[in-house]
């Protein structure tokens, strides 16, 4: 198959998915008697520069979340617990930074490390249960999500302080804040300074996965566990390592907002980022660039939909349907394209064999 054709086939799947999602969303809106035209007019309008900054901020956070999920996916591990790891890690990081044990930037750096360790530890519970007791990580991480919610609420009550209506950890000293980056000239709102973490993590993900032995072992185990075992991979150790790494990256999700905007962990923390990350990883096919595209699309949709209620009188929740349909149709489309590719390859091989009938008969004689 030619290179161009291969590329075309790779791009057609997301295209089908976007069209399908647009179609389903429009049909749902038609079904309940809302104006389809107004919906698309609002969602597809050019965002103001302030909203563009918000989109970039949300996308960077979603990208980290998508990476966390993708690390597990590459090894056929379903870390559904990104959400719980993110909550536990963000709380721990915020609490540690709020203690102000270290001066300035050192506090920031160590707090990020503490958050990553907390996320890894929370994922580690699932890893240990899987390798020692054979508990499926799907179920255990789902349970750990719920437990994380209760645990953090308890810790917030014990260790946090009341500020007006909400309960939050001690505010991080100003010396440890990370200043924002001006992305668009003349726009007062800034991109999170730690949005750069997403870039670093993305590059790290690509390098580790494609250029190191660890990454090779990880992908090999994901592709065929038996083959990996036969070539000397210690699957149990890889399972633990992959889940710890996934949890550590999940620990980064809350950092840009923590050090850039909210400066404390409070009951107003954004929930659901971990679940959206799973969706983003699926849309992006676990590819570092694909996940970035997925994160941008999801961030764009959620930010643009906020105006739906005010302008068009449509509930912004409809966008969750759009996002869900994107995920489902993209995985179906990839599967259909894969089968189609397989069939083309089979016909090509068959044709090549037909062209050299002599080779076949020589083997026979």
């Amino acid at each position: 198959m030619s290179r161009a054709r291969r590329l075309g086939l790779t791009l057609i799947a997301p295209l089908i998915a976007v069209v399908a999602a647009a179609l389903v969303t429009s049909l749902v809106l038609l079904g309940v008697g809302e104006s389809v035209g107004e919906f698309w007019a609002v969602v597809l309008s050019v965002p103001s520069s302030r909203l563009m900054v918000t989109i970039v901020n949300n996308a960077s956070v979603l990208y980290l979340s998508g990476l966390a999920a993708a690390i597990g996916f590459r090894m056929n591990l379903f870390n559904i617990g990104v959400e719980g790891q993110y909550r536990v890690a963000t709380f721990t990081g915020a609490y540690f930074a709020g203690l102000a044990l270290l001066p300035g930037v050192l506090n920031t750096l160590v707090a990020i490390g503490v958050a990553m360790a907390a996320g890894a530890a929370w994922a580690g519970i699932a890893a240990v249960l899987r390798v020692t007791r054979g508990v499926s990580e799907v179920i255990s991480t789902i349970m750990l999500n719920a437990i994380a919610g209760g645990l953090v609420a308890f810790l917030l009550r014990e260790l946090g302080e009341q500020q007006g209506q909400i309960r939050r950890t001690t505010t991080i000293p100003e010396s440890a804040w990370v200043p924002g980056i001006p992305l668009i000239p003349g726009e007062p709102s800034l991109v999170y300074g730690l949005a750069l973490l997403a870039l670093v993590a993305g590059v790290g993900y690509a390098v580790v996965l494609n250029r190191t032995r660890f990454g090779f072992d990880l992908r090999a185990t994901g592709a065929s566990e038996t083959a990996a075992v036969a070539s000397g991979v210690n699957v149990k150790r890889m399972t633990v390592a992959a889940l710890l790494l996934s949890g550590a990256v999940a620990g980064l999700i809350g950092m840009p907002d923590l050090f850039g905007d909210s400066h404390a962990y409070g009951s107003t923390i954004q929930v659901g980022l971990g679940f959206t990350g799973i969706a983003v990883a699926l849309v992006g096919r676990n590819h570092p660039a694909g996940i970035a595209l997925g994160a941008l699309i999801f961030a764009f949709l959620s930010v643009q939909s906020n105006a739906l209620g005010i302008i068009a009188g449509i509930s912004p929740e409809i966008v969750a349907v759009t996002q869900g349909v994107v995920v489902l149709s993209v995985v179906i489309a990839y599967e259909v394209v894969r089968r189609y590719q397989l069939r083309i390859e089979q016909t090509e091989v068959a044709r090549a064999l037909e062209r050299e009938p002599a080779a076949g008969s020589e083997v026979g004689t």
Partner: protein
Amino acid sequence: MSTVAGASAPGAAGPPQPVGAAPRRSSPRSMLWVWLLLGLLALASARVLSGADDIDSPGTLGAALTLAIPIALAGLGGLWSERAGVVNIGLEGMMILGTLGAGYYTFHFGVWAGLLGAMAFGAIGGLLHGTATVVFGVDHIVSGVAINIIAAGAAAFLAEVFFSGLPGGGPTQSPALPNAPSFDVPILSGAASDLATKDWFVVSDAASVVAALTTDMSAFTLLALAAFAGTYWVLWHTPFGLRLRSCGESPTAAETLGVNVYRYKMIAVTASGALAGFAGCYLAVVASSGYANGQTGGRGYIGLAAMIFGNWRPGGLLTGSLLFGYTDAARLRSGGESVHALLLVVAAGLLVFALWQLRRARAAHAIGFAVAGGVVLFWFLAADTIPSDFTQMTPFVATLLVLALFSQRLRMPAADGQRYRRGEAG
């Protein structure tokens, strides 16, 4: 402690069994009674020792049943689907669709139409999951995750459309819904309730159970129990059930015997969605008084865990659901105190398990369980109550503990979660 699972799963890839410990054969049904009796005895002892009277009052047990049924129905949905080889983590989403369907149809057309509507909504989710996994061969977990996202979004969006203008309704909840008909068993109900208040060791506790089962029994609860009996009969005593289960064990073998594997899988997943829809309906109509956003609260996942706990069998699934329903009820009714008393039960269980491990000459395991039991016992003695945040986690921690202790004795259908394509049988 786990003879039930051990007897039904002799081939499981568990730790090597000592030669002396031949698997004891006893019918699962008689073992169920033994377990229920032991549980009752443990609860009665804990009640007397800790003075937490609410841990097995008829009210708590009744609430336990009400909270167990949605979990059990979701798990039953999981059972249908996984017995046919399709892992269904979309149960949560199908349950959400069920609560929405129940809210809409019950408000407009009454309780029974609400049940049908909820099952239809759930079945749509099941059909979607089936189309993605069976027809297109998408990974089952991935499809399930996507369905959960779609269902949560669709429910939140449609709830606003359905309920916004209605009296007592709002963008996130339906108006109050009529409850399903319920009844008391005459004489028995009153007598048992009286006896339950007498505070006699074991006798009053047993009376509590009878009182809970005979007082204010909902028609939906009976229907749910009938669904269990029906599932057991259909899946294990009819040719249809045998074929369906063969699709979960070895689809290629089933194919060579002329079974239309795709059709059976689709039927199973659709039934699974309908049962999850029923679970959602029960939650909205019986366990609470109407639809509300986020009402399922992960119960679909707990149902899945209950099914795994039950070793992919209806009886075990029901036992697991009752266990989870009970921990949920204990926290709702005088939560801190009741869950605190339950710590004593858990500590005793862990210590007994440690002794059992010691008898089987596994010192390391024995020490581990003994230490865990000691810690829980210390916790029980040191504190008077448990913070509400911890009581909320109880069902989830219980699920994790149970899976950690028993998972190696479980055996799932052999081809569960695997992709299958027609015509690939050799």
